[in-house]
């Protein structure tokens, strides 16, 4: 292998600046998409077990559609197609006047995709762990809405902190898709540096470590939450 190592490029102001700003954008996009995903996923997942037929149907359609179209295609739809099919003035607003149009588009697209997956987890948690206690809760005289709010939902959510960790990690990884619409996040910046310096090893190593550290932080944070609310115990001992 004929390759000249030069780790110093990672410490040159320009390239270091690029890589760190990429890391920062990755974190920002990940957190923002995760916030969207959690909100939407919680609503849709809950709606899946709602008494209203139309709410269940609507949530079901959302989950089926958003889970089954590749996130990259969704990103393209939001970015390239949406502005062209809405009225011209609104399309131009989307393309030009929306603050940070690429970032917002990426957050919406990734958030809604991840949200559909979170919704599935929420539904599964409610069905597997929360719902079996419904009869017991009803039998004490709680109204269905109360039983859901006080028992079924809290239990269902506690049980899925573990699976949600995976979804959080997936969301972080999805943030790299935004490079295809020109967001200079971590992967894009590492490629950027490679392009300028031909020092691909060093640049990709930086990105790899960046993702690993983010991943470890996410896993650690979620595990901390899981322990605090006793989620693991819920999954092991059948309630």
């Amino acid at each position, binding site marked *: 292998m004929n*390759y000249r190592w030069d780790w110093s490029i990672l410490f040159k102001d320009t390239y270091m600046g690029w890589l760190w700003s990429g890391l920062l954008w990755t974190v920002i996009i990940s957190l923002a998409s995760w916030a969207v995903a959690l909100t939407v996923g919680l609503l849709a997942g809950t709606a899946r077990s709602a008494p209203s037929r139309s709410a269940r149907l609507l949530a079901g359609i959302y989950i089926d559609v958003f889970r089954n179209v590749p996130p990259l295609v969704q990103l393209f739809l939001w970015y390239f197609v949406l502005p062209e099919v809405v009225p011209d003035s609104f399309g131009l607003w989307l393309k030009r006047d929306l603050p940070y149009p690429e970032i917002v588009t990426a957050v919406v697209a990734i958030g809604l995709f991840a949200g559909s997956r979170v919704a599935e987890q929420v539904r599964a948690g409610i069905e597997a762990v929360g719902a079996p206690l419904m009869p017991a809760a009803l039998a004490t005289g709680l109204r269905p809405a109360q039983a859901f709010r006080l028992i079924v939902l809290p239990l269902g959510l506690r049980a899925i902190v573990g699976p949600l960790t995976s979804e959080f990690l997936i969301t972080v990884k999805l943030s790299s898709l935004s490079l295809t619409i020109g967001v200079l996040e971590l992967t894009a910046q590492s490629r950027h540096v490679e392009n300028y310096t031909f020092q691909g090893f060093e640049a990709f190593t930086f990105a790899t470590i960046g993702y690993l550290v983010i991943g470890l932080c996410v896993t650690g944070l979620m595990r901390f939450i899981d322990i605090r609310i006793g989620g693991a115990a819920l999954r092991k001992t059948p309630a």
Partner: protein
Amino acid sequence: MSDFDWGIIARSSAFLAEGMALSALLVLVATVGGLILGFGLALMRLSSHWLLSVPASTYVTVMRTLPLVLVLFWFYFLVPLVIGRPVGSLASALLAFVLFEAAFYCEIVRAGISNVRNGQSDAGLATGLRRAQVLRLIILPQALRAMMPLILNQIVIVFQDTSLVYVVSLHDFLTAASVVASRDGRATEMYALVALVYLAICLGTTKAAEFYRKGLPT
């Protein structure tokens, strides 16, 4: 937006079909290769010897934390350097897919195997079967059934992931459509088509997985 021109789909269908063929090839190779490698990794992870289990679990953790796009870049850049030959984007993408998906299939196989009750292996051993026999005759057939829906779901994810080979200039289905979209300025029609095709295939597979899961004895 100008008027829709759905004829564009018919005119570019041969080109799109080539893209779909590449996507299918990627899915096939990634799934078969990923399953084989993943199976080995899973056995390593389940081993009680740390020399086997620690490397396997490290590998899985790293692969699961990295975005596929980055892994694709890594291999695209690394493979020619290491083997000193141009391998083309396809070979490096195939390699990246197999190695990447192996981490996920490893977790599926592991879940499938640990899902089989401990008592089953006790029961097999107690009748005098050897460990390998227990694995082959009792654990695996049951694990495979439990794994089927998970494997189907993973195939959906792999299929969705194939759209990423765009970044190493391979023409998968989505990229083929992108090319037509920008060549003829027909982004709306092409991306709508792509979304529908993916939706139909993935939703069909997802529903099949759900159906299969419901039919499983618990």
